[in-house]
């Protein structure tokens, strides 16, 4: 057993638990987006960041991946933490304004509007990659992946057309935190027409 403090409360954990595991076991809520219990933690959305303090030093770590360690002093809702969450949510509001889930979450942090440009008012996808990971780790189908990188990144099957790896199980739709996969699903699951023109230049 390890002992640490979360928000000033002494809690116990076992080696191998993450900070998120430990907090949740003790009824402390930490918001998450890219986290789902069925797949390996990813540490991408950074909404679950918590502050670790040690003397005058402090740093933020993603609680879903950071292991519980003896003597940690963890703060789950400090100003530093909330500043990160508020900015991420505000930026998500401009990035995927169509998602009601994001709007609700942002409202909880007092973020009602965004001061950034909205490029696609229909967008819901936050690119958390949960669908991709669920497809690989839960289903084993590997039908979808991230495509491209950085700001151009999107989610889809190869060539963004239905491929024959998809088993149309809908796990991606179920794990999607914003409902974005629902619309995308139609572009993934279609039964592929047999590709006649398979040939290789040589």
């Amino acid at each position: 057993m390890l002992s640490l403090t979360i928000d000033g409360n002494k809690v116990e954990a076992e080696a191998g638990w993450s900070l998120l595991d430990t907090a949740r076991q003790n009824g402390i809520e930490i918001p998450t987006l890219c986290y789902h219990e069925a797949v390996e933690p990813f540490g991408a959305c950074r909404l679950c960041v918590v502050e670790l303090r040690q003397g005058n030093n402090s740093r933020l770590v993603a609680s879903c991946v950071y292991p519980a360690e003896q003597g940690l002093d963890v703060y789950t809702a400090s100003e530093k933490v909330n500043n990160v969450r508020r900015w991420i949510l505000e930026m998500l509001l401009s990035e995927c304004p169509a998602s009601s889930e994001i709007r609700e979450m942002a409202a909880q942090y007092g973020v009602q509007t965004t001061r950034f440009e909205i490029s696609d008012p229909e967008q819901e996808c936050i690119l958390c990659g949960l669908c991709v990971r669920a497809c690989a780790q839960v289903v084993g189908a590997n039908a979808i992946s991230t495509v491209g990188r950085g700001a151009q990144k999107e989610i889809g099957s190869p060539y963004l057309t239905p491929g024959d790896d998809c088993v149309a199980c809908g796990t991606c739709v179920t794990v999607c935190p914003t409902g974005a996969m629902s619309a995308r699903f139609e572009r993934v699951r279609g039964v592929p027409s047999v590709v006649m023109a398979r040939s290789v230049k040589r």
Partner: protein
Amino acid sequence: MQATAKDTAELRLGSLEELEKLRGELRAAEDPNHTRIIVCHGTGCIANGSAGVTEALKAALAAAGEDIAVMPGIKTTGCHGFCSRGPLVIIKPKNIFYQQVKPGDAEEIVQKTIKAGEMVESLLYEHPQTGEKIETTEDIPFYAGQQRVVLANIGQIDPTKIDDALRAGAYAGAAKALTNMEPKQVIEAVINSGLRGRGGAGFPTGIKWNLAAKHEGGQKYVLCNADEGDPGAFMDRSVMEGDPHAVVEGMIIGGYAIGADTGYVYVRAEYPLAIKHLEKALRDARAYGLLGENILGSGFNFDIRINRGAGAFVCGEETALMRSVEGKVGEPVPRPPYPSDKGLFGKPSVLNNVETWANVSRILDKGADWFAGLGTEKSKGTKVFALVGKVNNVGLVEVPMGIKLREIVMEIGGGVPGSDHFKAVQTGGPSGGCLPWQDADLPVDFDSLIAAGSMMGSGGMIVMDDRDCMVDVAKYFLGFLEEESCGKCFPCRLGVPRLRETLNRFSKGQGTVEDIDDLYSLAEAIKAGSLCALGGTAPNAVLSTLRYFRDEYETHILEHRCPAGVCKDLITYSIDPEVCTGCRACARACPQNAITGEKKKPHTIDESLCIRCGMCFESCKFGAVQVQ
């Protein structure tokens, strides 16, 4: 050509003694007093045509007959660092320094210098201030101010010939480590030397090794980060091109120290020459038994493989690099677990950059104390910088840690063209920041740079003058990072474009001073919240320019003016009727047909049509086009 099995067996060095014997023989075979011609074949010089110079020299030598005692003919080497003056030709043993040599000069060099021992005046370097001609390398200020440790052999040896490297002392450090030291002692030596990683963060190298060495037994890896992605940095490339054996040797030592039997070098694909030289070095080292099974009879097995990068800056981040070596998308993964516990293929791994590995070979060769004697209290040794931008002597310089910024730029670098000061020096690549002229006396070491809001990074040093707009520079780096962000973590993927969006507004003369405060808050969130160092340092470009050049930001926002004349939306092009000759060059160049005017009469630009592409400015030979 690969050596056949039989040749290999004959070449293999079975022990330290055999290595030293060979080295002795090689040294004895070369008379240091012989005249030798060295031609720089670094990428810079080759681009300037040094291959042609070599050919011409060869032809000239052949034509001059066999009575010329040139041993062993012409040597082509890696980058000498003074790239802006290439192609470079050095005549040994006197170290006569010829610069900007053209193939047509070959005949004269052979006839005058080689045969008669005279100088070719026109090819000598001219002191920019005094105008005096300088004959030898040592006397040129660019070289005089440097202290070459990592670069010591570069420019002296032919990087494609292992014998040449051995003559210069290669593999002495590795041999010493493998045959006379315990792995623990090797790590101790590296710790004692005080060497800190040259890749950016400056983590103590020996400590890092120790973490990986703690896992006893099992598969481990050492990796060399040669994915030099920082724009404006090319020291790793020069090391690999000019002295690949230093890297190989360092990795052998590292592998021995932590107990790894495989090393990976991850090289940018944009560096084909570096890859070629490294591959040759690996083949030669294998043939000599310096890589492979039972190296020098020590019982230690080690080999190195090369991975070519595929074009992703983020792969310079260690966890991303490892994913890339595994053949995956180069997205960083959160730490812990640290690579020293679970790295490449989930095994304990140590990653250092090229310069660090090269330093390791020197430390083992010359001793930890010697190295610890260089540099400052907390930053030991020397550092190689790529000095580029608005500076007279563009090139690679190696200086001891703690040297003042002013010395590097104004003395070694020969100052800023047309100015007695620099406006800013950008260090640390996209993760770093801009240091103003007020900081000219800042000692250049890991901690001082961080305190000043920048960082050492891999050693890019970009000099800027008054024609460079700091808002534009910040925007440029953010644009770079936006393009190179892997897009995994939200603060970086979302935040960097939003920072740039704000700067974009500034560069259009829009925005408010309050936006600057928001910028600070957002930058803080990105720094604290990002998954890897790419995002964690991304706001530095904005923060450091805001710190030193806030007035310039305010000029953009409040006065709608770009003082440096760079931001497109805030400038106008016009033609000075006094200077314009009416040659029509600009009118022809203008893609918008915005320039009108009769032949031989002053032209005018129609501002409503102008898209500020700058073609007129570039095409005008008389300087009549002006930017406001």
